[in-house]
C-alpha cells in the first residue's frame, strides 16, 4: 500500500507547484511510471483519487506513461528490453543490470486558475 504514500507525494508536488507557478486547479497529471517500479497502477490511481478528494486536484485525471525498461547483460553487455526485474539476457541468458524502468516522475500538468507568473498569495 505504498501507493498511498506515493499519491500523497504527488499531491504535495501539486501544492508546491501551485505556489510556485501560480495556478488554482489541476485537471490532469502526467506521471511517468517505469514498468519495473513495483507500483500497482490501479492502486495508485485509486489512492490518488482518495487523497486529492478535497484539494486543488479534486477530480483530476492521473495519466500514467510507461516507457519500456532497458537493461544490459551483466555477462555479455548486450542491451535489451526488460519486462520484469529478472528478465534474462535474450542473447546469453545472463542476468540483467537495470538501466531504466524504475522512474516515478510527475512530468507535466494541465492546470487553470490563479495568476500565471505570480508565486504568493495576497
Amino acid at each position, binding site marked *: *500500500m*505504498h501507493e*498511498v*504514500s*506515493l499519491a*500523497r*507525494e*504527488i499531491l*504535495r*508536488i501539486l*501544492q508546491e*507547484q*501551485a*505556489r510556485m*507557478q501560480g*495556478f*488554482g*486547479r489541476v*485537471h490532469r497529471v502526467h506521471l511517468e511510471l517505469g514498468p*519495473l*517500479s*513495483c507500483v500497482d497502477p490501479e492502486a495508485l490511481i485509486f489512492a490518488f483519487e482518495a487523497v486529492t478528494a478535497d484539494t*486543488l486536484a479534486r477530480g483530476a485525471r492521473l495519466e500514467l506513461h510507461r516507457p519500456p525498461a532497458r537493461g544490459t547483460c*551483466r555477462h555479455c553487455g548486450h542491451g535489451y528490453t526488460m519486462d*520484469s*526485474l*529478472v528478465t534474462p539476457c535474450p542473447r546469453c541468458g545472463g*542476468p540483467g543490470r*537495470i538501466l531504466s524502468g524504475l*522512474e*516515478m*516522475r*510527475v*512530468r*507535466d*500538468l*494541465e*492546470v*487553470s*486558475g*490563479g*495568476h*500565471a507568473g505570480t508565486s504568493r*498569495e495576497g
Partner: protein
Amino acid sequence: MCTTCGCDDHSPLRIDGGSLHPHGQGQAHAAGQRERRSIPVEADLLARNDAHARANRERFDSARVRALNLVSSPGSGKTALLVATLERLSGEIPLAVIEGDQETQRDADRIRATGVAAVQINTGKGCHLDAHGVGHACDHLDLREDGLLFIENVGNLVCPAAFDLGAHHRVLVLSVTEGDDKPFKYPDMFRTADALVINKLDLLPHVDFDLAACEAQALRLNPDMVIFRLSARTGEGLEAWMDWLCAGRPQAQQADDRDEDELETLRRRVAELEARLQRAGLMSS
C-alpha cells in the same frame, strides 16, 4: 522544525507516542482564470525522501555510525535476530535501535529489555518507514562514535523497498518457514538488499524449504548479495553475521586517516568472510 521537508503534510507518524513537532500551514488558493494550460514539472516522487536519506547518511557518517535497515515480512523472526545480536554486542560497541511498527510499542519494549536504547516510530496506516521519520527518530537517540544503528522496518516485503532511509546497508531477513520462492515474488526488495539473512535454520528439517534454490533466486536478482544462514534462537551461524556487522565501519571517507594496521585487519576479515562464504558455496566464482 525540520529543514528539508517543512513537514506540511498531516503525517500519521508518531514518535514514542507523540507527534514529530507541532506545526500548521496554509493551503494553496483557488482563483479566477478559467482557461487550461499545460505546465512542465519534472518532479521525482522519491526526490524528497532521497534528500532526507542523504541528510541521514551524512549524519551517520559524521557520527561514524554504521546504520542498517532491516526488512522482512511479518513473522520472519527479525526482532528475535535483533535481540540476539544486541545481547552479544552490548557493552562492546555503542548500539541504538529505531523500531518501526504500525501500532504497538511491543518490539521497542523487547529491545529495551536488552539495555539498548530504542525509539519507536509508529507509522499508523503507513506500511513502511521513510527517511523523514528516521531523521526525527535520530533526534531522540544518542548516536555514539563507531557504533551501530539498527533500523527495524515495518514487516512488509513490498513497500519499504522504494524508500531509502540513509542506512549504509539493507538487510533482508527471511525465515525457512516462508516460501523459498520469496525472491522472485518480491524482486524489488531482494534487488535492493545487500545482505540476506536466512533465519530459523533449526527448523529446516521440519519444513519444505529449498535453501539452494532460494539463494540462487536471490543471487539472480542481486549477484553481490551476502548471505547468512543462521538461527537466532539456537545461535547457530550467528558468528559470521556478527563478524560482518563488526567488520565494516561507516562508508568511510575517513579511510585516508585510518592507520594501516586497522586497514590490514579489515582486509583480513573480509578475506576470511569471503573464504567462508566460498566454502559454503554461497559465492558465484
